[in-house]
């Protein structure tokens, strides 16, 4: 199914935002402005954008260590996003989480996660809350192929099916579990595994945002009307290393070239061109995104160092009139 121009343009713009934001982060990291680890999802932008386009504001997503795309696609505040990754008080998490823990509960983004598979049961619990509270919402568990070998995925498939939870298992299968290829990590097929638990599974081209969005829209509607969990396996490509600075010696040149040959921006860009959108309109859109990013970076650089006393006071929830030891 193809989208029309009005539908595809915002998705393209959302993918450009993720691509340019991560490219900017890569440069900031190289310049020593981003502390810690940085895991980029360049090449995978169509998955979060296509899925989040099928969601409503009340819907929730739990993410992974490679979670910038999920956060931006779900609509987290861009200034807060950059401020967080640069370790500033103005960050979404006040500089306490960083890249691997970006969260914005206001838009239903329940957090990137430093533990492979860690977001799965959290998304399941969020789906339970939607079901019990009858919010009409659905929950999405983003996970990579690396999480397929985690026991908690198998537990979650089982429980989500037993309880018919409004939960989407959204697998970003980029073929690499950190430094190892999928065929040395996982002996099964995700679709067959899901079917064993009675969960319908579909595979899509994760480089084609229209394909992702179409399938996501269909299965989100199924989950939302109470017909239980769904699996969407998106075949995608990781262009960068597991983390920035990863020399990727475990990966041959052909594999990297294959990855780059399926560029979600090129796929959708060609579609827009075929629709007759002028190239300069696309370029204007891209420039506007880049300007927003530069504003966010500048604002983050001006941000304050995080407040240690405030952090110490937040180990537990501060209750008015109460005191903790």
């Amino acid at each position: 199914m193809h989208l029309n121009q009005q539908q595809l343009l915002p998705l393209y713009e959302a993918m450009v935002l993720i691509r340019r934001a991560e490219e900017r982060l890569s440069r900031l990291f190289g310049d020593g402005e981003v502390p810690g680890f940085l895991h980029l999802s360049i090449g995978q932008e169509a998955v979060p954008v296509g899925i989040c386009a099928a969601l409503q504001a009340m819907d929730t997503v739990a993410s992974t260590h490679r979670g910038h795309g999920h956060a931006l696609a779900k609509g987290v505040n861009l200034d807060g996003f950059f401020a967080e990754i640069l370790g500033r008080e103005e960050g979404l998490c006040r500089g306490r989480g960083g890249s691997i823990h970006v969260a914005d509960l206001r838009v239903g983004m329940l957090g990137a996660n430093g533990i492979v598979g860690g977001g799965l049961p959290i998304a399941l619990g969020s789906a339970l809350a939607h079901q019990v509270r009858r919010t009409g919402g659905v929950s999405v568990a983003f996970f990579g192929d690396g999480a397929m070998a985690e026991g908690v995925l198998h537990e979650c498939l089982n429980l989500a099916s037993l309880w018919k939870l409004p939960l989407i298992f959204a697998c970003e299968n980029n073929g690499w579990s950190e430094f190892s290829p999928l065929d040395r990590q996982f002996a099964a097929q995700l679709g067959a595994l899901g079917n064993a638990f009675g969960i319908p599974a579909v595979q899509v081209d994760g480089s084609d945002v229209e394909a992702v969005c179409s399938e996501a829209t269909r299965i989100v509607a199924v989950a939302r009307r109470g017909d239980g969990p769904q699996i969407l396996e998106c075949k995608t490509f990781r262009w960068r290393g597991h983390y920035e600075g990863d020399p990727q010696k475990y990966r041959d040149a052909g594999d990297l070239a294959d990855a780059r040959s399926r560029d979600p921006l090129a796929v959708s860009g060609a579609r827009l061109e075929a629709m007759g959108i002028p190239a300069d309109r696309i370029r204007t859109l891209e420039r506007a995104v880049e300007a927003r990013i530069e504003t966010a970076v500048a604002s983050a650089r001006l941000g304050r160092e995080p407040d240690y006393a405030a952090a110490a006071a937040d180990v537990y929830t501060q209750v008015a009139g109460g005191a903790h030891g």
Partner: protein
Amino acid sequence: MAETRYGMAINRALADAMQADSSVVLFGEDVAAPGGPFAVTRGLLAKFGPERVRDTPISEATIAGAAVGAAMGGLKPVVEIMFMDFMTLAMDALVNQAAKAHFMFGGQCSVPMVVRTPHGGGLNAGPQHSQCLEAWFAHVPGLKVVVPSNPADAYALLRAAIADPDPVVFVENKTLYSAKGELAEVPQPVAIGDARIAQNGSDVTIVTYGASVAAALKSAASFAADGISVEVIDLRSIQPWDERAVLESVAKTRRLIVAHEAVTAFGVGAEIAARISELAFGELAAPVLRVGADFMPIPFARKLERACLPGEADITAAVRRSLDWKPNTRITP
């Protein structure tokens, strides 16, 4: 006042909390239709229905992880892990997710969840069904840990745990489920972190919690005949623990014993001993002494288990050592 049992007090606390707040939900292994492995949740499915009271498969990691997501989504989940030994399977959700979400996300959300779990030996349940692992959780910033010793405290602390905005590990002792005690028609609330003076005394202080409170009280009674006055503090909460209550007692008695069923090494007693020594070294007339289980897996056979677990006699011996302690002596291990 009416007499009830520890397990029934927990059951009533769950029912009252669910009655008062429709966001409280219960799930865990065999908690709904079977009524709980120790019958603690009996009747709650009938009272509150299958939406709010749910049996889960045997999937501890997902039980705990789902509680985190449910709590972030507006519910107040109370989940059960059938034996504290099985908490090993739920560690990621508790240690990396529940404990950190409030802090790590800059205070955007809280995680109001309770994990109920029974600890303790005495049932010859063997090495994987008898452990007291509360110190592990007390060690993790962001978690709270409570261990009630009697029905009234079990009721009040469970209500406090469910009302608390942060994740609470609520530890029940298996041997206490049938223990009797008074529970008022309108029970008094207890704040997490407040200790209770179980017995007033002036010569030596025993700080303890859970099932060891009863052993400490028996030991204290045995000293009364000799004119030795023993104060017993029931800590009730391990994280946070009531430092002020212990300091006030030590200021009076100058002698402190910490007694618990958990393995002594690296335990709650070690933390309290270190802290009190740091703060009140000059007030102490003797070193702080610890009583706990020997450093071995809890064995199965009756004779072995009895020898491993601490009891009244071990507490009494520690009190004696404290009273008899002389400067410039070394205690033989």
